[in-house]
């Protein structure tokens, strides 16, 4: 099929910040979202274990009731939360660290219709990445992970573990999860072709 018309991907490069970043875009709760507030943070590391200080992280998630704010989500409209869009963007800092404030997503039906475990879709753009890398953040303390079809499809247990955000010892009122992203090599995060 040589007549594929799609536009190819190219790297975001190092100079996107003024165009793609806005203060506060990493706080998905700013609109008064319903549900349990959580924070997710971590570092993006390259194949040498060095921090990537110039990455753009995007997340897309369902609301606390497990519904996406999108017309193709057929679940009942009364599950929509007008205070929650489900989209966020964050930059990595000099130590490769990003941070999101959000709410714990509810369970969403997967491709087969069966409920998936709560998860946050995450995309990474950076210099040196010619395409977006996609992965999912799952929550390590969530019992429904055992029945999640996407997690179950990953044969290598070590790769599966890279998708589990670990609950951190609490200091503030919010539960904090840690989710590091290793682009290449030892401990490499499992990425998805969506």
């Amino acid at each position, binding site marked *: *099929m*040589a007549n*594929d018309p*799609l*536009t*190819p*991907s*190219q*790297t*975001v*490069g*190092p*100079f*996107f910040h*003024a*165009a*793609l970043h806005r203060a506060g875009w990493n706080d998905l709760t700013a609109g008064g979202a319903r549900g349990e507030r959580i924070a997710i943070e971590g570092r993006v590391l*390259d*194949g040498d274990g060095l921090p*990537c200080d110039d990455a753009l992280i*995007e997340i*897309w998630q369902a609301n606390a009731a497990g519904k996406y*704010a*999108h017309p*193709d*989500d057929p679940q009942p409209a009364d599950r929509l939360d007008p205070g929650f*869009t489900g*989209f966020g963007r964050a930059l990595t800092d000099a130590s490769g660290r990003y941070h999101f404030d959000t709410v714990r997503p509810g369970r*969403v*039906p*997967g*491709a*087969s*219709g069966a409920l*998936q475990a709560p998860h946050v*879709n995450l*995309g990474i*753009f*950076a*210099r*040196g*990445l*010619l*395409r*977006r*890398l*996609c992965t999912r953040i799952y929550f390590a303390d969530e019992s429904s992970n055992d029945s999640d079809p*996407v997690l179950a*499809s*990953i044969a290598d247990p070590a*790769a599966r573990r890279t998708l589990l955000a670990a609950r951190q010892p609490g200091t503030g009122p919010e539960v904090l999860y840690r989710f590091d992203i290793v*682009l*290449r*090599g030892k401990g490499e*995060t*499992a*990425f*998805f*072709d*969506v």
Partner: protein
Amino acid sequence: MIRPAARYAKPVAGTDPALLHAPYRGTLKRAPLRPALRIEQGLSEITGPGFSSGGPVATDLTRAGTAEALGQRIVVTGRLLDGGGRPIPHSLVEVWQCNAAGRYLHDKDRHDAPVDPNFTGVGRAFTDQDGQYRFLTIKPGAYPWNNSPNGWRPAHIHFSLFGPAWATRLITQMYFPGDPLLALDPIFHSVSDEAARRRLVSTYDPQLSQPEFALGYRFDIVLRGRDSTPFGT
């Protein structure tokens, strides 16, 4: 159950770059070693941010400052389409570029070329109901790139598109026809298929040029469309 018809088709081989492309040195430390795992698309992939609240638009990049930006004025316009040729309306388009001298307004750009205080190089628009977008800007310059000795990037404008779903998200670069640097650019050549590469190059369109004012370039962008492949093929 997600109907198969609701899913988005994948690009064919050769359209998207391989993540590891040795001539682009930045990929060597960042491209994953393992291939991405294919997952079946479900609600998480066929939904995506809509930006229905809109937000600010900035389609004239030449007048973002107190005086007019320096350089060759250009109109850049085109349509955002899906793989079936259907327009994608009301969709966010974000662009960024360097100035006419090849310098970005960015802390990390150390290129010794003049900054234009009247040019931020940042634009934001929503496609109209026919999928059209339009920017008035300045033709970006080429700039040196330390990927190789005496390497230079061809003139380009970065484009960020969402389309209707998480699966249709795309960031790409638009190039200019006839640029001699294209033949030497590792990022452009990371796309292995020549026809696919050509789709990254805008077209000079005299119909878009404005007399005594600006040159016109057309750049259509095609995102993944709904998968029309019947079962069993």
